[in-house]
């Protein structure tokens, strides 16, 4: 068991930078998710922690010890691979026992711990099977047991759920989280799925093009995103480009003036207004400024895709009752739009390619 610290960790391949000065402090027992689109450097970061990729600069500390130059086999991390990477020629029990064997644990102790680990992931009936005789979900649990049985100082998960079907994914997510909390594992999980990150991790690290964009809890990232990229990547968000006009408000690129609240930390000049779709109120209105373009019924919620003076705007409302006038809206209708100005966050537009969702 131990904490994990990354200090200005960087990886460059020739001219291109895969990871740029990542700092991270994961205290004992915390689960942190590295979240970002593919190619953002999250997997490279994880592989540097495991020791498979030598960093170009910076340090990795596990339990306070610098392991930057330590080979993978001496790092005492437990990794679950995206492909599970089970040993195809070994039985389930032998797969799980491998790490103990490498640690020269005696046979009796080994068998006891393998049994316990398999019970932990509810696979104790299948110990004599070969990996190819197991379903994807079962293989996944063998991979978990194999990584956990050695009591790793740091638990590493590389997109552990991406090869499972949607239903199983939800279950395994809960299972991994409860294991992690029960065993108090210091954990780093890599994922591109924000829902996975939001539901499993104590804290999230949003990465883009090798850099950390923001570190924080799910609430931090959702409610106070640091920039348009984070706002767009974590949850859904309307990102409207424009400029601040003082006094008055926010002038969109298409010329509309929108209400918002200025604060002492509001950036000047070109900004992006981030507005969560659930904050956008709509009402049918003959002379409304927005036009309804599409309605998507999702059961409990309904999505309204609007055109607001040339700016696309998404509103998500609880599905209206049958007698609600909203229910009668159809494509092309004029709609009035409003929101609490405090809900609209103004973010610096420094990243021209930081596109939203």
């Amino acid at each position, binding site marked *: 068991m131990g904490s994990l610290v990354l200090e200005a960790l960087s990886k460059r391949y020739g001219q291109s930078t895969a990871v740029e000065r990542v700092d991270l402090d994961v205290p004992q027992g915390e689960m942190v998710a590295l979240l970002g689109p593919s190619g953002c450097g999250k997997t490279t970061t994880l592989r540097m922690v495991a*020791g498979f990729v030598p960093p170009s600069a910076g340090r990795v500390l596990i339990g306070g010890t610098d392991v930057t130059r330590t080979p993978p*086999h001496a790092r005492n991390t437990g*990794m679950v691979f995206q492909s599970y990477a089970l040993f195809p*020629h070994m039985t389930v029990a032998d797969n799980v026992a491998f*790490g103990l064997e490498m640690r020269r644990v005696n046979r009796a102790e080994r068998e006891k711990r393998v049994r316990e680990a398999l019970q932990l992931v509810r696979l104790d009936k299948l110990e004599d099977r070969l990996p190819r005789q197991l379903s994807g979900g079962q293989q996944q649990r063998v991979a978990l047991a194999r990584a956990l049985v*050695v009591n790793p100082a740091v638990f590493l998960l590389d997109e552990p759920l991406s090869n499972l079907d949607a239903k199983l994914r939800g279950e395994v997510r809960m299972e991994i989280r409860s294991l992690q909390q029960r065993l108090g594992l210091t954990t780093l999980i890599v994922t591109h799925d924000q829902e996975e990150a939001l539901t499993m991790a104590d804290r999230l690290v949003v990465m883009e093009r090798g850099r950390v964009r923001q570190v924080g809890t799910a609430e931090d990232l959702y409610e106070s995103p640091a920039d348009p990229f984070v706002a767009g990547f974590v949850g859904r968000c309307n990102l409207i480009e424009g400029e601040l006009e003082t006094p008055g408000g926010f002038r969109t690129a298409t010329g509309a003036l929108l209400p918002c609240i200025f604060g002492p930390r509001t950036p000047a000049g070109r900004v992006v207004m981030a507005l969560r779709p659930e904050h956008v109120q709509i009402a049918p209105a003959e002379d409304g400024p927005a036009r309804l373009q599409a309605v998507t019924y999702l059961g409990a919620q309904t999505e309204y895709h609007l055109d607001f003076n040339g700016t696309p705007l998404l509103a998500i409302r609880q599905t209206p009752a049958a007698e609600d006038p909203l229910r009668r809206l159809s494509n092309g209708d004029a709609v009035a739009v409003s929101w609490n100005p405090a809900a609209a966050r103004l973010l610096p537009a420094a990243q021209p390619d930081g596109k939203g969702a």
Partner: protein
Amino acid sequence: MHLPSPGRLAFGGLVSAAFALMLAPVAMVMVISIFAQEIVSFPPSGFTLEWYINAWQRQEFARGFLSSLQIATLATLIGVPLGTAAAFALVRAKPRGGSAMQTLLLGPLAVPGVVAGTALYMFYLRAEFWLDQDITSTLQGLVAAHVLLTIPWTVRLVTASLQGLDRAAEEAAANLGARPFTVFRRVTLPAMRPGIIAACLFSFIQSFENLELSLLLVGPGRTTLPVAMLNYLEFRMDPTLAAVATVQIILVAVLMLITDRFVSIARTV
């Protein structure tokens, strides 16, 4: 129970015909080897094991068998490790020009045996002149030529088995505390094992049955079994040869069956 569709029936018929066509000569040889009369003709006048006894008593077949066995074993023992190393380097180090190298290593499969044999013979004569040492009609010369037969099969089979291994499994082993050599021994080598075993089998058979390459390279007193059979054929034409061939066929079949117990040949090749 319902009847199979005409399409299925036609397919089954075609498969059976193909197998019959391939196996007919083999079956023929085996049947002829127990015909009593010297000149093969139908119907047989009777059955006998005389030809097997004759084959056993003729020195050239027994000696040819032993020397074929010796050469095939040596060629396999030398060629398979070489080919395995080459396959490993090609797959893992991905050297520049790797695909050209691979094609070159598979080359002996494409060159007709007689051509390769002639070329080697001429090369050996030249080398003998320069080195002032016998090469043609020596065991070493013959084994070296047969190593050439074993390499393409080995490269092909071991490459395939290596490509089937998820590299992450090796990383997982390292992650669990295995040092690099242990990773190789416990994860990489087992993955290559079916390929290597199949390579041994095919190499051995290739060498054991080879006629064309050996033809010019064998020396007096060191004749391989196929060459001995050809020599016999020049002067006589009786079922002794069929008896020898039958023994050869059975040996190969037994080797295949034994190998198949360890690795599934159909899956590996």
